[in-house]
């Protein structure tokens, strides 16, 4: 007897929402539902990441399809009584787009979800990732059935080739071709590795994928293994992703129980099993040869290619390494056919891509869109634009290997080629939106700091080159830039690209080169005018209290960690620039109505200085009072 319910509450239990207290909410809901005797009718289902992480903790009420965000424990009794008992949905908890008044009750009305096309994440928020039966019910493991009963390994490879699927791990290598190379190798055994190392800062697609639908990855791995003739597979995951690791463990043991992993699967005589390996916090381990070394227990430094892993990989045997998102595409291709799949996307980039949309954007979260959609749609329609009415400046894609795409290229389609042409790359799918308050020099410095930290140090160009880049960038942001620095950065960048051995070094200068290409004037402002147009670089800015606006409320003075503010109650406050550490606390403290604290840079600083030289004087409050 299958249990039926009247209402199901699909509660997101992805890392983001869990951090926001999703488990407590679930517990609270269950208690409240039981207290009202509704447990037969209403059930709570934990799902993987819903994607709209900025609204978490959140849930979707099925079958009405109503979306509730920012839940708190206090909302629960009211919610259960009104909505689940009396059937009156609560507007207060629904989503209201910023800058608008109208609430949007239904999930399907919310623009964030509207323009998405779910292929890989087809089960997100619909199944409980810890229940294999849920996955099976959504046509899960149909693809395994199909390949085992009616397709030869070569036919599988051919199908994947026709579908046009390209690797989602960054480089976009055609997956079918990779499999073909491995399947043609004579040497055995062959290995398969699913890459879920995901070290790019600002990207969490792979983690969410595993958290919401681990069986899709297992099924994809199975098919890849079948195609290349491998019975042993590894999935390499970041240890930081504990929830994902746990879900994967659960999923693997359930699949073993059902005989979908192990020996003689579904009576076909084909064996296949998966072992989880965890990384321990080294970005370079995402690189395929380095990852292989890490699994072998060797020093995880990359090695020269060729031979490619598909020829000589793990323990010297042919090894296919694919990103987990790539693999999760495979079951869909097999069940729905390569022709259906290749109908989505552009000429050279097929299918969909998951992006994590983060940074200065209203709707942060995880999205899946068809290839070829343009950036404007992603940022303004799905992402809901930039918060606080700020100006869009650039979007960074491809993480530390990618680059910035400026506002004029917003109408460019998102696919492998056009991103590359714009000086960036697809990468694993992080999309970090920057507004006018983000300094591109500072961001470049940040990325180089990252790659400099993470460079394994094996080749000189990458190790010392990143060091040299960092030195120059630090100098520029400190206001000590010199004539010729820009040219030096360019030349050095190109050299590092040419001379590095692995992808880390070959792409490390991209953030600098791409920002130089689009925002050269900003670099020059730093160097020539000692001015940071975005008001970020600390040595180039000053905080300043506008004497005409200050009401002498002492708020900033009391909270200044450096005790750098002089003044008394109802006296104009002055910042002692020698003591100021530029932490920005005063700006935060100043009441929004007053907003007397401002940031200034470059020549503007000189214009203001004289004004602030006055010793604290009583401010005539009359003006304010009479108003």
């Amino acid at each position: 007897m299958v249990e039926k319910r009247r209402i199901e509450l699909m509660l997101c239990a992805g890392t983001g929402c869990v951090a926001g207290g999703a488990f407590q909410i679930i517990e609270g809901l269950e208690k409240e539902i039981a207290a009202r005797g509704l447990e037969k009718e209403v059930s709570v289902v934990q799902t993987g990441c819903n994607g709209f992480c900025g609204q978490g903790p959140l849930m979707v009420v099925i079958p009405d399809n109503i979306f509730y965000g920012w839940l708190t424990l206090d909302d629960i009794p009211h919610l259960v009584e009104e909505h689940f008992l009396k059937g009156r949905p609560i507007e207060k908890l629904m989503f209201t787009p910023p800058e608008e008044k109208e609430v949007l009750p239904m999930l399907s009305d919310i623009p964030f979800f509207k323009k998405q096309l779910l292929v890989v994440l087809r089960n997100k928020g619909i199944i409980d990732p810890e229940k294999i039966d849920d996955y099976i019910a959504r046509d899960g493991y149909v693809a395994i059935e199909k390949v085992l009963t009616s397709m030869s390994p070569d036919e599988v490879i051919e199908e994947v080739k026709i579908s046009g699927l390209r690797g989602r791990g960054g480089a976009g290598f055609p997956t079918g071709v990779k499999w073909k190379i491995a399947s043609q190798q004579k040497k055995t055994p062959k290995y398969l590795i699913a890459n879920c190392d995901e070290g790019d800062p600002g990207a969490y697609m792979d983690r969410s994928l595993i958290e919401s639908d681990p069986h899709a990855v297992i099924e994809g791995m199975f098919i890849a293994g079948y195609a290349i003739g491998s019975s042993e597979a590894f999935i390499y995951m970041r240890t930081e992703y504990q929830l994902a690791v746990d879900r994967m463990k659960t999923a693997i043991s359930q699949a073993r129980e059902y005989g979908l992993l192990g020996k003689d699967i579904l009576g076909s005589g084909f064996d296949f099993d998966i072992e989880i390996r965890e990384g321990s916090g080294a970005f370079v381990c995402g690189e395929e040869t380095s990852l292989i070394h890490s699994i072998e227990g060797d020093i995880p430094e990359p090695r020269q290619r060729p031979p490619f892993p598909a020829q000589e990989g793990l323990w010297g045997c042919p090894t296919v390494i694919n990103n987990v998102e790539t693999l999760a595409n495979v079951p869909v291709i097999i069940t729905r056919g390569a022709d259906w799949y290749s109908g989505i996307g552009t000429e050279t980039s097929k299918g969909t891509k998951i992006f994590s949309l983060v940074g200065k954007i209203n709707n942060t979260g995880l999205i899946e869109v068809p290839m070829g959609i343009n950036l404007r749609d992603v940022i303004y329609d799905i992402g809901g634009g930039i918060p606080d009415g700020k100006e869009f400046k650039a979007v960074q894609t491809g993480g530390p290997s990618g680059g910035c795409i400026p506002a004029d290229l917003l109408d460019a389609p998102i696919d492998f080629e056009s991103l590359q042409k714009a000086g960036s790359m697809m990468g694993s799918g992080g999309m970090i939106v920057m507004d006018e308050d983000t300094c591109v020099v500072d961001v470049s410095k940040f990325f180089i700091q990252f790659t400099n930290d993470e460079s394994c140090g094996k080749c000189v160009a990458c190790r010392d080159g990143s060091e040299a880049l960092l030195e120059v960038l630090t100098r520029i942001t400190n206001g000590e830039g010199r004539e010729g620095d820009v040219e030096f950065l360019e030349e050095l960048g190109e050299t590092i690209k040419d001379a590095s051995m692995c992808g880390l070094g070959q792409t490390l200068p991209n953030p600098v080169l791409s920002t130089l290409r689009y925002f050269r004037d900003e670099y020059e402002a730093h160097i020539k005018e000692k001015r940071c147009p975005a008001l970020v670089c600390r040595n180039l800015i000053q905080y300043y209290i506008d004497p005409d606006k200050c009401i002498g409320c002492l708020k900033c003075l009391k909270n200044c960690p450096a005790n750098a503010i002089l003044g008394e109650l109802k006296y104009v406050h002055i910042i002692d620039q020698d003591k100021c550490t530029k932490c920005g606390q005063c700006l935060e403290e100043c009441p929004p109505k007053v907003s007397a604290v401002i940031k200034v840079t470059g020549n503007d600083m000189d214009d203001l200085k004289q004004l602030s030289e006055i010793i604290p004087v009583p401010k005539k409050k009359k003006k304010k009072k009479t108003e």
Partner: protein
Amino acid sequence: MSLNLEDRKKIGSALVVGGGIGGMQAALDLAESGIKVYMVDNKSSIGGVMSQLDKTFPTNDCAMCTMAPRLVEIGRHKDIEKITLSEVESITGQPGNFTVKIKKQPRYVDEEKCTGCGACVSNCPTRNTVQLQEREVITLEPQYEETVINILQKHKDRKGPLMPILQDVNEVYNYFPEKILKYISQETGYPLTHINRIATFYSAFSLKPIGKHVINVCMGTACYVRGAELLLEKFVDVLGVGIDETTEDMLFTLKSVRCIGCCGLAPVATIGDDVYGKLQSKDIPDIIAKYQKKEQ
């Protein structure tokens, strides 16, 4: 020291200690000016370090081309006598008249008669025996031993067991005590140098004990553009320790990480398993205090 030249009775020979490139040149110069030269070296042959180099700094000259002619010349010079496999034990006397005591190791070959044909080398029955020092056997204290043995046992049959072993040990102890690493090396046969390289490569591993609560401040891109740097500074300020350092009471270790995948909640910090999203620097003192209170 003022020298009384009258007292000095010069004897016509010199001793050069060390047969490197400098010693060789000195010996040749002396011998060319008609002085009998003794040359002492503790190795079985002269040549020193330069014989092991390819090129020399800063001129990139070929090392062998520089020294080979001198080697040959010394070998031939009638006034240079090489005393190899020897060390100077004592020097007495004063400038102009020294007496030097030299200790010579046995060579088991009559140097007068040897022609350097090499036949003895190829005929020696124990030619390739390497004599190593006895390796010290590591035993762990009972309280460690059981855990570590269990971990080793668990991964015994795995391919590439080293990472899983280290991860499990790290899980238990939070860091790698030196003795345990040595023990692992002894039991698994991985050289200690190799284990050390791995143990220092990954950022999740540490060779120093770390605090009870590890504070990870995310410095990933999303958090960075939303002001994570200020949070980190506040932590440094509140805890009074720098990044990758541990407070004296062993309660907190401060670290920075690159993205923990909660970018939607940026800026983020984690303390142990607790995640703090949309964190503001003014909340930090209270959060720290909460953990400190729990300990009391």
